[in-house]
């Protein structure tokens, strides 16, 4: 695997849209060709080279390409957008839409990510050492097809509306979650929160699973306690209380049984 390193040499006045920072776009290109790729600052087009020094070289394919972003990345939006393979390592924090619509490969952010990270994610892995903003692994505005597959792992806390319209994949949160978790979720998505969640957990949820280790401040009144279960969840063995809901929402039948969203609260 070959590595391309991006070193910021100038900060944009506005946020910079860098959807071209992706192994798919870099693959098979020289440092000069990469520096010639476009970025958007508002509605103005610039070259990547205006804001970054590009070092190293890319692999022949996306899968053989690793990108390292050094320095301040807090004004970079759409890092790794729609990437299908390869790796991106961000040494600090990023702006919005990190790994949005990613389909494969891996992004590792050592700092925090802002809102809309992994929007509409279809596959791959997003690792965040810090905190994540609102709408992590959510659907694009208006869309009913949210996260389909893949894994997101956040060491810290996440903002509101995580897994909005989630259809599949896994989100694991080391810390706490703000309001609205897995709203409208349907299908087989799984969210594990090792800290606590505030409220509106699983609102209008049709299917999928939520595991919470540290309790919920305010439960939805439309969830019904079913039974206690012993489970191993991401390496932790414990007894969980199983709730099903959202009973105010329609629920399809699968093999004669009604499908509900499942909410597991650790004792």
């Amino acid at each position, binding site marked *: 695997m070959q590595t391309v390193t991006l070193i910021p040499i100038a900060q944009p006045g506005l946020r910079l849209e860098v959807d071209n920072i992706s192994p798919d776009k870099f693959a098979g290109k020289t440092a000069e060709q990469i520096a010639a790729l476009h970025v958007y600052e508002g*509605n103005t087009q610039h070259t990547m080279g205006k804001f970054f020094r590009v070092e190293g070289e890319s692999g022949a394919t996306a899968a053989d390409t690793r990108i390292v972003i050094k320095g301040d990345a807090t004004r970079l939006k759409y890092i790794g957008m729609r990437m299908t393979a390869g790796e991106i390592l961000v040494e600090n924090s990023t702006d919005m839409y990190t790994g949005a619509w990613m389909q494969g490969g891996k992004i590792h952010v050592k700092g925090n990510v802002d809102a809309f990270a992994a929007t509409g994610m279809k596959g791959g892995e997003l690792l965040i050492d810090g905190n994540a903003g609102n709408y992590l692994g959510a659907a*694009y*505005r*208006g*869309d*009913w097809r949210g996260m389909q597959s893949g894994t997101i792992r956040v060491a810290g806390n996440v903002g509101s509306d995580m897994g909005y319209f989630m259809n599949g994949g896994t989100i694991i949160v080391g810390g706490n979650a703000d309001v609205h978790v897995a709203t409208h979720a349907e299908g087989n998505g799984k969210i594990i929160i090792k800290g606590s969640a505030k409220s509106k957990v699983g609102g209008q949820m049709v299917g999928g699973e939520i595991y919470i280790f540290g309790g919920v401040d305010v439960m939805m009144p439309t969830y019904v306690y079913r039974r206690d279960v012993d489970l191993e969840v991401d390496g932790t063995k414990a007894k969980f209380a199983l709730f099903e809901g959202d009973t105010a929402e*329609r629920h399809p039948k699968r093999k004669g049984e009604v499908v509900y969203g499942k909410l597991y609260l650790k004792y």
Partner: protein
Amino acid sequence: MSEYLIKNGFVFDPTQKINGDVKDVAIQDGKIVDKVAKPKVIDAKGMTVMAGALDIHAHVAGPKVNIGRIFRPEDKLFNETPRKGMMRSEGGFSIPTTYRTGYAYARMGYTTVMEAAMPPLFARHVHEEIRDTPIIDEGAYPVFGNNWFVLEYLKNREIENTAAYIAWLLRVTRGFAVKLVNPGGTEAWGWGLNCLQVTDPVPYFDITPEEIIKGLIEANEYLGLPHSIHLHGNNLGNPGNYTTTLDTLKLAEGYKAKNNFGRDVVMHHTHIQFHSYGGTKWADFESKAKEVADYVNRQKNISIDVGFVTLDETTTMTADGPFEHHLTELNHLKWANADVELETAAGVVPYIYSPDIFVSGVQWAVGLEIALFSKDMMRCHLTTDHPNAGPFTRYPRVLKWLMSQKARDEQIKAFKASDKVVSQSQIAEIDRELTLFEVAQMTRAGPAKVLGLSHMYGGLKPGLDADVAVYDFNPEKEHKPDEIEKAFSHVKFLWKTGTPIITDGEIISHGNKRTLWVNPKVNENPQVMRDIHDKFLKFYTVTEKNYEVTGKHFIPNPFVIEVDATR
């Protein structure tokens, strides 16, 4: 204005019975002419030349379309083109921006489009969007089929009063024709009910769809409007609804068109694909296209447009409020619903016509069967009820299916439930392939005649507006199906009223877009004027002054068609 001579193209013009002859077409001062002195010459050798096409039914402007745009931001995701040169930015697939709407129609060789349903209360909004749609001439059909005035007058069989009200409403909304959407049923939706048969009474008003449809045919012919009534019948989209459709079409029997615009039909039934279903439920859903097309073939005083299903993800929108509720209950996707006081209602729901779903496959077959069983292509027009059965940008794909049995066979094979689609329809047995002459009838001469606009559009006769499209398509050569689609997706040259819009495939001008509307003159009718005044005082949330579409702001470039219906 300059002169142009389009030389040596294969010309297709049903109005002059020209069927692919190699001919020249001359343009001078916005009109087609016999001869030009010093023209700019365009070599169209090996290409197809036709008049600019007309879309008789599309939802391209107004509150419904805008609700779709607002509540479907995902429709524009990864589907935007930035501003470039003289061209404005474009966006959207099933509910494109106004600029994309104008550009996309022009690229396919379309020069005139009719907005299919204008809620009178929101006519100002409709006209603002029409104004912002470049290139194409447009008109809009105000909806009448659930209007309180119409329901009250027709209950008492007051045709003259209905006509006077229509004349007033067409004038104040700058409307083009009389549109009916689920007559009576949309009003019944206000009570949570519907009218699924032409004999179902409308609550409170105690009138039936049958009475509304016949009354509006009579009022329309009393006025002698350019277009006939434009009808979206009852019971749309339900298995077994073809009997309702036949009952509806039969209502036109015995009526004769009375007008000075060369129109022969008294009823245009729109998107009839949605109305030609057999079966009793979705499981035994089947095509009844043959039954409906046979009736239309026999009955010379009705015309239809098809509403082809294009197998795309799209956005349905209609003034048929109860139907949109039915749809959201089926697919569980987001739903917008609105009531328009005294006049109509509307609903919007996204919909995916998936080739993996058997019903979508049969719907696709029904649309194509209607066209392929039709004998008179002057009375069977190409539409997708944009965006309801698919976006209008798919017309070239529909042409591919109509013009190539091979293309249809490929699609049938691609269906997941291929066998079931074939067994529930007749599409696989049809070997008819439409000719370019028939295509020109479906998309040019036919709609122009039915709209009463054959004195302006639809042909290449000297004296007509110089709307000319040149396609890079040699009719003497064999074509693969996809080459048909490609050729009709991008005209090589396009003129709109003599102005070059597209040259060598590139859009070079926003043209000189006009808004068409009809201004019927009737005898003074104090009773109707008093009723209008009364209803505005009693019920409307706006005053008459804030209702009328007036001034350059809404219609910078009007084209008024005057109709004298005074007795």
